[in-house]
């Protein structure tokens, strides 16, 4: 039974997504309970899967009896299982959050929304588990198509942002596919484990380098790495409030995870192809993303736009950690990925509550609501602590391990980039709090009534999770060091 867990995890949301339009044709209000039940069932299954992987080693799931190099296989190792717990928990929170906002926010297209969310979740499980480069491409595209449709689901200004995302995202997917076909042409295999043995003999091959670069650029577009980030802020800002938390916290991170898997598991990351050390490239790009993203965030007045740019800068920080090429940096990077995912979800929940409850979109208006909204301000303070990286939040320990890794690798540029980006993050949150606590600002007369329970729940859980990840950072990082490291480190 336990070796079937990866397939069960994938099939739960997929079957729910497929049956949703049929079941909810007549009873539209059933769609939320069904999605919540499906995702709530996924959380224990994913934790069970993590437990299983930790105690019995990685699971290689073989489809329909065709074993590895010939057939398609899924690899449930430590890293994938940890990320899956994150994916299922955050998407459950996202769907719980949607309850009260959805009818107004989504223009009545509730069934479409829940179907697409479940499809998105199942395709992200596929990306996390995929042990085959082409399988990864297919799931990336399913996730991308669901996201385009989700962003545009309510119409309005989001349509144009979704169209731009579609154009750029498809270009990224085509480049990824091109890279995969280069690698296939050189190695003659698509299976990641099989490819590992063939790469050491091909290090002088230009096609290998070309393939890796195309894959890097393609996934870079998907994860909104800095030169290719232009689609993200508009898409996440104008997307309906119930959708941006799940998109911002999971979709880019899962693309980043796919990239980590290809660099560390397929290519032994410390190798040098044609005199180009790939990790150096990653550090430089990561440092640029961390600093540029945070400085762009400083210039925004729309809160969702500000948080979206903050997410771009945090992708850079994760890449800095991953790119150090030592155990501390890698574990720190993955730990920061978990934190960042929770923080992004929390921040966009907050933006959603601010708009739905108080009609607030810009930081000036947020200042006017100010102290009348204790839930909003309280959770904003916790999330700001996490984003800036102050103890005892998880953000602090993530950055701490990343900096330790960079010092271990004698890489002072990376340390400087992390610190500079922290300062810039501090600057834009100071700007936000200055608006909230300025005494002179005129109060906005809000007739808001009681905050719905699901808003309190999601804000409370994400704020608590930020603190808990910080308090339990040592065992989590130890778990990552023991079970989630790539074989080459």
């Amino acid at each position, binding site marked *: 039974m336990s070796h079937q867990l990866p397939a069960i995890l994938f099939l739960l949301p997929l079957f729910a997504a497929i049956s949703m339009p049929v079941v909810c044709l007549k009873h539209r209000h059933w769609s939320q309970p069904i999605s919540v039940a499906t995702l709530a069932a996924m959380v224990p299954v994913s934790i069970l899967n993590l437990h299983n992987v930790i105690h019995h080693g990685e699971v290689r799931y073989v489809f329909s009896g065709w074993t590895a190099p010939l057939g398609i296989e899924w690899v449930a190792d430590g890293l994938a299982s940890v990320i899956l717990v994150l994916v299922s928990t955050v998407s459950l929170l996202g769907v719980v959050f949607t309850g009260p906002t959805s009818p107004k926010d989504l223009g009545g297209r509730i069934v479409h929304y829940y179907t697409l969310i479940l499809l998105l979740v199942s395709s992200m499980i596929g990306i996390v588990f995929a042990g085959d480069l*082409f399988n990864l*491409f*297919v799931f990336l*595209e399913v996730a*991308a*198509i669901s996201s*385009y*449709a989700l962003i*545009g689901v309510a*119409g*309005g*200004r989001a*349509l*144009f942002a*979704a*169209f731009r995302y*579609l*154009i750029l995202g*498809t*270009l990224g*997917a*085509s480049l990824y*596919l*091109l890279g995969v*076909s280069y690698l*296939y*042409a050189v190695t003659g295999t*698509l299976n990641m484990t099989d490819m590992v043995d063939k790469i050491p003999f091909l290090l002088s091959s230009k096609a290998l380098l070309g393939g890796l670069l195309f894959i890097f650029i393609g996934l870079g577009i998907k994860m909104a790495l800095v030169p290719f980030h232009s689609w993200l802020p508009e898409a996440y800002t104008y997307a309906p409030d119930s959708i941006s938390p799940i998109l911002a916290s999971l979709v880019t991170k899962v693309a980043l995870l796919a990239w980590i898997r290809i660099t560390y598991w397929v290519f032994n990351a410390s190798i040098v192809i044609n005199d180009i050390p790939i990790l150096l490239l990653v550090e430089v790009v990561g440092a640029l993303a961390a600093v540029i993203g945070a400085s762009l965030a400083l210039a925004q007045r729309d809160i969702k736009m500000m948080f979206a740019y903050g997410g771009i800068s945090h992708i850079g920080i994760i890449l800095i950690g991953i790119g150090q090429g030592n155990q501390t940096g890698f574990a720190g990077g993955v730990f920061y990925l978990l934190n960042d995912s929770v923080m992004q979800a929390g921040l966009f929940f907050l933006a959603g509550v601010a708009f739905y409850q108080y009609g607030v979109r810009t930081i000036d208006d947020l200042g006017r609501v100010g102290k009348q909204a204790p839930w909003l301000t309280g959770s904003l303070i916790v999330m700001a602590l996490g984003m800036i990286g102050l103890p005892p939040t998880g953000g602090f320990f993530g950055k701490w391990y990343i900096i330790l890794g960079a010092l271990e690798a004698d890489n002072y540029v990376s340390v400087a980039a992390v610190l500079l980006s922290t300062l810039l993050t501090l600057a834009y949150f100071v700007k936000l709090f200055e608006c909230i606590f300025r005494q002179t600002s005129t109060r906005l007369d809000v007739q808001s009534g009681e905050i719905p329970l699901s808003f309190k729940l999601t804000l409370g859980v994400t704020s608590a999770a930020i603190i808990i990840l910080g308090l339990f950072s040592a065992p989590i990082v130890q778990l990552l060091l023991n079970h989630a490291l790539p074989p080459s480190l």
Partner: protein
Amino acid sequence: MVDAFFAVFQRPNFLTFVIIFLWGFYIMVTRYNLVKKLIGMYLVQTSVIFFLVSISAKKGATVPVLLSTTEPVQAASYANPLPHVLTLTAIVVGVATLGVGLALCAAIYRKYGSLDEQEILEKLE
């Protein structure tokens, strides 16, 4: 330099791939009409599919069904089925993306009454 030039013309399929890819990319970047952008996007996707097919082509090979079960298998006489299957999947993915893109275009046209990027941006301001 001259060698490199001739080497390129030794492989007309790669040259074709590069031309189609860059042509599609050029259309995506320079045209303001959203449907034309989608056409450029589709050209880019098709060029990658073309590349995948062209690297798997084999002279004198037949369909990958064993001609005889008694003799040892001659790999050279069968085409590799994998790239063709990948191509099929990539085409399906491309069609799905194009469908979503056209649906978005239709919705944008209904909302803004135009498909021209600049006109839409003016209306957004």
